[in-house]
């Protein structure tokens, strides 16, 4: 039996650190910048600071966390790029999948705190290294491949995640041959010795604790470990002791991979091509039943479905349906596909179907009707009725949304603005409703608003002296209106923090006027206009 680390039951954790992932990614995208001083900038605490540097910029003396303006003064030729978190996330996702060649057990990617744009992965490589002829060869292979991709990386293997983390970042200074300056391996049983000379920040401490240790003159992990536990915990709290234990592998720290994303794609291949509508329907029903089963197991509801039909002549037909509310009702989904299925051109026949849930949402749980609080007006029976009613409405709205587009189905949502046209907005009715808005109370809290509001229409006023009060007679929409009563003014000022072209004309005085014919119109006057300027902006009835 080989005397490897696995034989003794020890785990081996690998930490891969890409200290300048964002800068390397930017250089990969723009190869013509190779060799140029490049900085990645991001806004932190109200300042533009450097969070990533290319190798040339680093040797030129620039440092992370420096203000962008200072860095430009030091290095006039500095090229800067804003941090692209989405691209960094995509890189992380890609790398995580790629790392699967070394180990099947890969933890979530991590980022260092502070002004850095790095990536860090933890792999459990227990029992994996011999496939690459040893740990050293594994690290060499991994780093060489990353270097070919233009990604600077460091890696370390140790018995604990904390130890490997420390060695990957701080191990270089204490590195011994035969390892390269980018990789470090702590041989089994020697982790404590390997960590001894590293600075205490390698223990993943918060800034406060790290500063406290520095003030006491503690510069090595070994010095921290030498302090009696009780005193250490009293002075710096339990987290420091915990970090120490995690680094030395005394306290286990699991490597937790993120859950795999839910993929619901189900296919059905036919021994003979089919072409009849009933056969298609039956095939779809079978796919839907399996999809719903899978959705049920995952606790999800489908929002958008895609059906791909492969014809014998290899041409694909695709049908997509959206649901106005997330659903797991196979019968309802089948009905929504009905319209599309009728338009399918089967040609020489269809030999495979594939159903994909394009968008899924976590299922909203509802209280069982029997447990729902009963009031005077709702018995258990009516609650069920109400649920059935909503399902029916959802279905018909899905049907209409499928034809018109879901952006045409809207609901009123309150907005935080005092301007009449911005006090609300329309949101797609397909989106889940946030809360039951009480508009009546909101409407009572502000002066009466018109039933319908339109873009300001100038009204013709002939009389003079209408600066303070609305005109007695005015022409609007081709008719003359005599004012019988007027209420106002209600002064509405523009939102000065937003430049809205409609409100550039300034403060408005709104009046509700009633004409002798009974029409109730909302008029306003531009309070800051040199000449009296009157407009109609809505009507109440």
């Amino acid at each position: 039996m080989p005397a490897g680390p696995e034989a003794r039951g020890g785990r081996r954790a690998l930490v891969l650190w890409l200290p300048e992932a964002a800068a390397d990614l930017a250089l990969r995208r723009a190869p013509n910048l190779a060799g140029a001083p490049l900085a990645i900038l991001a806004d932190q605490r109200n300042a533009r600071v450097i969070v990533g540097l290319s190798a040339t910029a680093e040797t030129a003396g620039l440092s992370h966390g420096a203000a962008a303006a200072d860095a430009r003064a030091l290095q006039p030729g500095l090229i800067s790029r804003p941090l692209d978190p989405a691209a960094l996330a995509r890189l992380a996702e890609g790398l995580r999948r790629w790392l699967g060649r070394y180990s099947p057990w890969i933890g979530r990617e991590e980022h260092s705190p502070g002004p850095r744009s790095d990536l860090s992965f933890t792999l459990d490589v227990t029992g994996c290294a011999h496939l690459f002829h040893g740990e050293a060869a594994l690290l060499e292979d991994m780093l060489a491949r990353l270097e070919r991709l233009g990604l600077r990386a460091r890696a370390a293997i140790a018995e604990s995640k904390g130890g490997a983390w420390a060695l990957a970042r701080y191990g270089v200074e204490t590195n011994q041959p035969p390892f390269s300056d980018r990789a470090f391996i702590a041989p089994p049983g020697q982790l404590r010795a390997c960590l001894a000379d590293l600075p205490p920040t390698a223990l993943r401490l918060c800034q406060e604790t790290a500063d406290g240790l520095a003030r006491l003159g503690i510069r090595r992990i070994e010095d921290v470990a030498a302090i009696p536990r009780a005193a250490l915990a009293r002075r710096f709290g339990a987290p420091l002791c915990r970090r120490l234990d995690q680094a030395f592998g005394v306290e286990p720290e699991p490597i937790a991979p993120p859950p795999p994303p839910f993929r619901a794609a189900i296919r059905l291949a036919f021994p003979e091509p089919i072409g009849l509508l009933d056969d298609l329907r039956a095939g779809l029903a079978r796919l839907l039943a399996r999809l719903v089963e899978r959705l049920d197991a995952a606790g999800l509801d489908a929002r958008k479905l895609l059906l791909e039909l492969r014809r014998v002549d290899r041409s694909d037909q695709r049908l997509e349906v959206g649901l106005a509310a997330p659903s797991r009702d196979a019968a309802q989904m089948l009905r929504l596909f009905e319209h599309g299925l009728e338009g399918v051109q089967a040609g020489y026949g269809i030999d495979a179907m594939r159903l994909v849930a394009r968008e899924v949402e976590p299922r909203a749980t509802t209280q069982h009707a029997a447990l729902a609080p009963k009031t005077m007006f709702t018995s258990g029976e009516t609650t069920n009725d109400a649920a059935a009613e909503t399902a029916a409405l959802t279905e018909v709205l899905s049907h209409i949304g499928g034809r018109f587009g879901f952006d045409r189905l809207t609901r009123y949502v309150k907005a935080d603005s005092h301007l009449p046209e911005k006090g609300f907005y329309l949101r797609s009715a397909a989106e889940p409703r946030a809360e039951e808005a009480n508009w009546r109370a909101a409407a009572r809290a502000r002066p009466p608003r018109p039933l319908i509001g339109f873009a300001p229409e100038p009204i013709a006023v002939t009389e003079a002296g209408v600066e303070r009060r609305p005109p007695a007679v005015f022409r609007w929409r081709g008719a003359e209106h005599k004012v019988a009563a007027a209420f106002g003014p209600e002064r509405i000022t523009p939102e000065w923090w937003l430049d809205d072209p409609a409100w550039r004309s300034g403060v408005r005085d709104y009046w509700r006027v009633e004409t002798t014919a009974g029409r109730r119109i909302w008029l306003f006057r531009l309070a800051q206009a040199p000449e009296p300027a009157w407009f109609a902006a809505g009507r109440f009835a």
Partner: protein
Amino acid sequence: MNGLAIDTTAARAPLPQQTDATNVLAPPKLREARAHEVSGDGALAFAAMQAGMRLGPVVWIAAPRGEGRMDPYGLAPFVEPSRIILIDAPSEKDAFWAMEEVLRSGAAPTVIGAAGTAPDLTQSRRLQLAAEAGAAAAGKSPAPLAILLTPAGAGGPAAETRWRAAPQPSWFEGLAAPRWSWELIKNKRGPLGAWTIEAPYGRNAAPIFAAQPVDPMRVG
């Protein structure tokens, strides 16, 4: 029924099937499982008030040729805007199609159509049939009804009732209590009539609308 526009105690009580001209307080109600039409300057308020007198979701279907945006703060005294689902149909034809679909499903008790035009004979007839089918689909829930906002002087031949709604000058205090006149100018089964609707409309007023039948002699 005490005639309150929003009466939660009457949650699922059957609505009277006849517009009740003798009750001086309750605004006239529309027959269920039918399509009704309304025109005039007060048509929007008519539709909103009728929706407010009914329970459940309100589906408001509009075609692109609209006057402007309905303001939920302005709608609130008539009907709670969170009950409304707006459907913006790409064309008039699509608006009628959507109305028919919603009616037939029986899922929304009130369907309001502002297509901008009056339905022709076929569309009008189809809406009636859809409303009837919806009443069967709705089961124990309130049967759906449709209110079409049509241009003045136009209307679908198959409409159950046709109304002319116009704002009227207030009795007193200017805008404090707006009034409307509702004239029933076509009624397939039942007499015609006219009502005056008054709302103590103000900042703190409860949304209560009182109706009064107008003396037939005065309607002319």
